[in-house]
Structures are given as structure tokens and as C-alpha cells.
């Protein structure tokens, strides 16, 4: 198993955080992991991304030009990374902010209104958790129970936020799993 994932959005949407949670869960599952943030000039422009690699083998490059998966929370991120995704890859799209679908037909698009769903779950700020849930649901990249443990673990300092984030993740997951058969058949 070897998976390269790019997570991208505006600064403040929490893409670095969900990338860390994904890497943390991968590590707990016994895999090799890397998490690499883009810390350069693009970050100064207000957009933000990170690359997570989860693998059974020691990881060489922690950055990628051809990810197996992509999570985009805003439109510039879809514009920037859509063409790079490997054929058959999963793209989770936050349709609250992304006004178009991928132009490619050889990828599995998982569109969902992350901010709206997060609002219903208790806080629009948890849109990142909705997207993470959808990605885990569609790809099964890490065990969902383990992912929940990691989520709880990471919010120990602010326990009030745990149920909201858990609910947001679950709502996303429920949408994501509907795409799991398509993702598995790729």
C-alpha cells in the first residue's frame, strides 16, 4: 500500500490539521508516514496545502506531482491540483466554495457541501473534518475507528469541540462511503 494525498484550501480552513490527523492515524496503524506543508510563497498568498504519504515501505519523496488522492476546500486548489491526480484517484470537493466539478472523467469525484454540512453538525469551522470524513469513507485509507481515536486525542485541550468534530467527520464519512465501491473498482 502506498498513498500520496494532497490536501489544499485557504489558510485557516484547517487543511494542515486534517493532514496531520491522517498521517497520525496512518502511523498508529503501523504504516510509514510523512506530512509536508507548503511553507513557501504560496502560503503568503492565502492558500495552503500539505502532502501526506502513507506507505508500507520507507518513504522516499515526501512531495508528489501525481497524488492518489486530493482534498480541495476551495476553488483555486481544484484549479491547481486537478490535473496532477492519478487516473482513478479520489477528489473530495467542498462544493460550498468550489463552483465547478472536475473536468476529468478518469477520477472519482466526491462532491459535498462541507461548510453547510459542518454548520448542521454544530460549527461551520469543522468543514475540514467533513472533507476528511468523506475521504476516509471513499478510500478506506485508514481504519475509521482509529481515525476517531486520533481525532479525540488531538482535541484533548478543547474537549468541548470533540462531539462537534466527531459529528462533522461522521456526516462526511457517510457521504464518502457511497463512493467506496467506485473507488475500490478503479
Amino acid at each position: 500500500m502506498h498513498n500520496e494525498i494532497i490536501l489544499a484550501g485557504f489558510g485557516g480552513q484547517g487543511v494542515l490539521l486534517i493532514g496531520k490527523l491522517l498521517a497520525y492515524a496512518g502511523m498508529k496503524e503501523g504504516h510509514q508516514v510523512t506530512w509536508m506543508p507548503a511553507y513557501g510563497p504560496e502560503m503568503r498568498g492565502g492558500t495552503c496545502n500539505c502532502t501526506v504519504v502513507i506507505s508500507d515501505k520507507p518513504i522516499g519523496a515526501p512531495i508528489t506531482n501525481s497524488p492518489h488522492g486530493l482534498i480541495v476546500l476551495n476553488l483555486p486548489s481544484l484549479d491547481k491540483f486537478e490535473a496532477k491526480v492519478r487516473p482513478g484517484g479520489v477528489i473530495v470537493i467542498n462544493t460550498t466554495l468550489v463552483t465547478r466539478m472536475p473536468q476529468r472523467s478518469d477520477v472519482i469525484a466526491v462532491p459535498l457541501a462541507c461548510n453547510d454540512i459542518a454548520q448542521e453538525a454544530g460549527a461551520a469551522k469543522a468543514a475540514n473534518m467533513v472533507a476528511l470524513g468523506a475521504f476516509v469513507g471513499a478510500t478506506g485509507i485508514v481504519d475509521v475507528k482509529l481515525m476517531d481515536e486520533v481525532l479525540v486525542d488531538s482535541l484533548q485541550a478543547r474537549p468541548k469541540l470533540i462531539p462537534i468534530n466527531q459529528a462533522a467527520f461522521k456526516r462526511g464519512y457517510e457521504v464518502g462511503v457511497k463512493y467506496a465501491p467506485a473507488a475500490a473498482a478503479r
Partner: protein
Amino acid sequence: MAKKLMKGCEAIGEAAIKAGCRLFFGYPITPQNEIPEYMSARLPQVGGTFVQAESEVAAINMLYGAAGAGCRVMTSSSSPGISLMQEGISYIAGSELPVVIVNIMRGGPGLGGILPSQSDYFQATKGGGHGDYRCFVLAPSSVQEAADLMIDAFDLADKYRNPVLVLGDGLIGQMMEPVEFKSEIAPDDLPAKPWATTGCKERKPNIINSLYLAGEQLEQHNWHLNRKYESMKQDVRFELYNAEGGCDVLIVAYGTVARIAKTSIEDLKAKGIKAGIFRPITLYPFPGEALAKAAAGAKAGVLVSELSCGQMLEDVQFHLKDRGRISFYGRVGGMVMAPEELVDQVTKIAGA
């Protein structure tokens, strides 16, 4: 101890503490700010001291003083900041003091940029400041190795009474990977430093200085230092990867580029090309003899790859007699090559 997911910079900070370092003096600069940030929080918890100096020049001279007093001490910076420290590093080398300096390199010259680079290789390995001196230079390729080498760096600094430079880049500093700290030593358990200026009650004063006005004396001192640098060869380190029994092409790379090359090697396998990697872990002393041996087993040639216009390349050329067999591929300015770029280069050399 369980593995923790940490940034390279944070792992470097924690490793220093595990090595018994309780003093950090530095000045902020991207992309290594997580080191001083981590140390500013952690050192007070373990009875240490963190000082944000007024400049890099001040910071390196604080190291000079603390090291002279026999304390394990470190600083960290990135390329332009390390340039500012060169005068102090020269004094520290001349006075034979053990310090650890971390350079998380960014693109230059001048202010350059903040993205990963390996363009301080010359500065790190050939002296850097004025005078005839060398730093011991270690180049980690992963977060775990950054932590391990950081602990070794303090021991090597003490062993040779010499500055040790840990040379990473923005990618090693900013990346998170699982890391495990295998050993820990308390400052009180460190070997004694009888040469240090710790107060001379009931003994002759120790003097720490780099001034030798008499030519005869300075010459003697220079040759003494030179013998010391020569003796560092006993601690030369490298990794030879996928090159057992020879290979088609040998990639010579260190740090970030070496790990990118590991991904390229997998893709090359699928094309029926066997590429090996020779990865210097000590950049000074440079593992030249081992490289020559490994390169002899490369059928089609040697590819040197760096995030510079070709700095380590000169050391490789020095150690390999047949220069016609050496190719070079570099990315600069903060751009990092994708594994596919090295696949293309190796494929060309292999003639496949």
C-alpha cells in the same frame, strides 16, 4: 518510548535536550523558526536557558562563551543567518570549542528565498569563515536521522573540541515523520571538560583564546588543527543503497535529494534499470574512498544530484578519476526535483 509524529525542527530541538544540551542562543529566520520556538518552550521545563539574541552575531558569541565554560550549547539558523555567524564560528574553531550549529538551508545568495536548498555546501564543508579550519558536517535525510545525528553531533563536538554543523534544508525542517528518541543523558552525567574555564580555585587557570601573535606558535597551532581535521576521517559516514553487487547508474546525493532518489529507484526498477545511491552522511569528512569503491561498480556512470548548481559535485570529481563518467542534475532557487526527473536523468545515462 513510543514513536511521535514530529516536525524535523521540533525533533532536532528535542534531540538536543536528550543529548544534555540546556542552552540555546539564536535569532529567528524561516524555515527553522520551529527550533527556537520549541526550545523556548522546552528548555525552561528542564532547567535550561533560551535566549533570543539581538542578532546572529550576538548568538554565536554567546555560544563561544557558554562552550568555553564547558556547557553543551547550540544555535540554529538558516543560510543568511549562518553567514552572519561565520566570524564567530572561525573564533570557536580557532579556540577549539565544542558547539553544535544547525543550518536549515534556504535558497540564496543574499536574502534569496525561504524554500529548501543545498547551496551552503561550500560554506559548510570548506571552512566558511576566515582562517584554515573545518567544521564537522552531518547531513540528515529524515526526521529520525535528524534526531539521531543531533545527539551524535554533541558527542562529536566534544570528541574533537570543534564546531559540528548539522546541515538540513527546509524540507527536512518542515516535514513531519514518526520519530523515536533512543537515548537520553543528563547534563550532570556528561564527561568532564578539564580544559573549560569553570573557575580556577586550586588549579592553574585555563585560557581559551584564538590569538597567537608569534608566527611559530600559530603555525604550530594550525598544524595541530590540521592533524585534528585529518583524524576526523575515522568518523566518516555514508549509506550505500541498492548497490550491492554493482548497479547500472550510481546516484550520489545527500539529505533531501537522497530520499527523493529512493523513490526514483523504485520507478527505475520497473524499467529494468538498477540504480544505486551513495549518500554521504558526513559531508566533512567526505567519504571519498568509499565513494570511489562504489562508483567502480556502476556500469554506465555516476549521477550527482543536488539542490545547488553543483557544489558537492566538486568533491565527487576530486575523488573519482574518470570525470567523463560523472553527470550532474541540480534544481535551485528552492525548487525541488520530482522523482520522475531523476528517473529521466538515470535512464539517459543507462542508455536504455
